[in-house]
C-alpha cells in the first residue's frame, strides 16, 4: 500500500475465544496504586 502503513494488525477478536484465563495481573487504574492500566498489561498465557 502506498498511502497506509499498518503498524499493528493484532485482531482483538482472536483473543476473545482463547482469552479470559485470568493469569494476568490485577489492574487498578487509580492514581493511588501501582496503576496498571488495562492496555499496558501483558498477557501471561
Amino acid at each position, binding site marked *: 500500500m502506498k498511502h497506509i502503513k499498518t503498524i499493528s494488525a*493484532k485482531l482483538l477478536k482472536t483473543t476473545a475465544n482463547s482469552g479470559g484465563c485470568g*493469569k494476568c495481573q490485577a489492574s487498578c*487504574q487509580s492514581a493511588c496504586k501501582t496503576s496498571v492500566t488495562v492496555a499496558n498489561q501483558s498477557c501471561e498465557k
Partner: protein
Amino acid sequence: MYTDAWKNEGICKMIHKYRLGGYNIVMDVNSGAIHCVDDLAFDTLDGYTLGEAFSPPAELLERYTAAEIEEAVGEIGQLVREGLLFSDEDYEWATAAKGGAPLKAICLHVAHDCNLRCGYCFAGEGEYKGARALMSAETARRAIDFLVENSRGRRELEVDFFGGEPLLNFDTVKQTVAYARSLEEPYDKNFRFTITTNGMMLNDEIETYINEEMYNVVLSLDGRKSVNDGMRKTLGGGSSYDAVVPKFQKLVKSRAESKYRSVYLRGTFTHDNLDFARDVIHMCDLGFRNVSVEPVVAEASESFAIREEDLPRIFDEYEALAGQLPERDGLNFFHFNIDLSGGPCVIKRLTGCGAGTEYLAVTPEGHIYPCHQFVGREPYMLGNLDEGVANTQLRDRLGALNVYTKPDCVDCWAKFHCGGGCAANSLTFGGDLRAAYKIGCDMHRKRVECAIMMKVAEEAAQ
C-alpha cells in the same frame, strides 16, 4: 482529533484518527489495528462512508487529484474487507465470562496509619475515615485463607501490602508472607507480593527482605524536591524527599541484582505542578528508570485538584514527555507503556480492574471492600472475613461493570485500552458506579494517543 462511528445493528464500527508527533494515526477500535497514513488517506477518511460510493467533497478535490483520491479509497476499502478498518466485532457476549470470575488479588491494609502527612492522601493520612489501626497477623492469615478458598482454578495470586504505610506493621507483613508461602505447595498456588511504601522506614534489613520476597515494589515520590515536599511532609512538616531519596536509590540498585527486578517509582501530580514532565525527568536523573506520575484524584473543592481548564496544559505536557522519552535511555513511563502485539485479551480489556470480584481489599478489622478506594465508605462494604462477601447484590453490580454497561464507554474509542475506568472515581465524581469521571477519561485518552504515537515512531525508525 476525530472519531467516526457508525451504528449498525447496535454494533459500533468506530475508527479514531489523530495527528501527533508528525504522524497521522488511524486506530480501528474494534479490531485494535493501528495504521499510519499519509495526508491523502487521512483527509479522505473524513468523508468516507461505509457501503456507499465515495464522492469526494470539494475541499478534498482542491488538494488532491481525483485519481489520487481513488487510489486512497481503494486502499481504505481493502482494509475494510480485511477487517482492519471499521470492523464490526462485538464482544459483548464475552462479558458473561467475567461475572463469576474467581478472586485473584487482595489488597491488605496492614496499617491504617502513616508516618507522613501528604496533603492529597485519599486515605485521610492513612486512617480511611476510621481509627488508626494495625492489622493483626491473625487477621492477615485469615485474609490469605479467604483468598486461597475463593480463587478456585487460579494459580497466580496477588497480595498487595498497602496502607497507610505498610512498613509500620512489618511484622505482620513477614508473618503473612511466610504463611502464604506455606500454602503454595499444598494448594498449588503461586503468590506474588507487592509492597507500596513511602520509604521512611526502609533500612538494610527491610531492603533485603523486600528484595527476597516482594515480586514488585512501589516507592512513592513525586519528583523534584520542591514538588515532593510541597505535598509529602513528615510528621513535623519537614522534607520527606531528603529522607527517602537516598534509601530509594540504594534499594533500586540492590534490586537490580535480586531475584525480582520489578520496582516502580510512583508519584502524583496536581494542579500545582502541571509541568510534571520535569518531575518524571528529574526521577530519571536520580537514577530511576520505571516511573509513573499520575494525576491526583481529589474533590474539586481542593485547591490542588485537577480542573477542566488544566487539561490543555496537561495534554501539552504529555506530548512533551512523549517527545523526550526516547532520548532518555531506558526510561519507562508507565502510562506510555502499551503492548500492541501481545497485550491482554479482549475479555480483560472489557472489564478493567475487577474490583469487587477478582480484586478485594481487607481492612485491619477484617472488613472486605471492593478495593482500597472504597475502604471507609460504609455502604460499599462487601462483608467481612467471618461471613465472606455477604453483600452479593453489590458484588454483582460491580461484576456487571464493563465497557458495554457504562454508557460513556460504549462510544469511547479508547474503551479497549481502558476497560471502563475506575469504579471508585465514577462514584466520587459521577455519583454512580456506571458514570464516567470525565477529566480522568480525557487524560486517559491523551495518554493512549501518546503511547500509540510512540509505537508508531518506533516502527517508523526501523
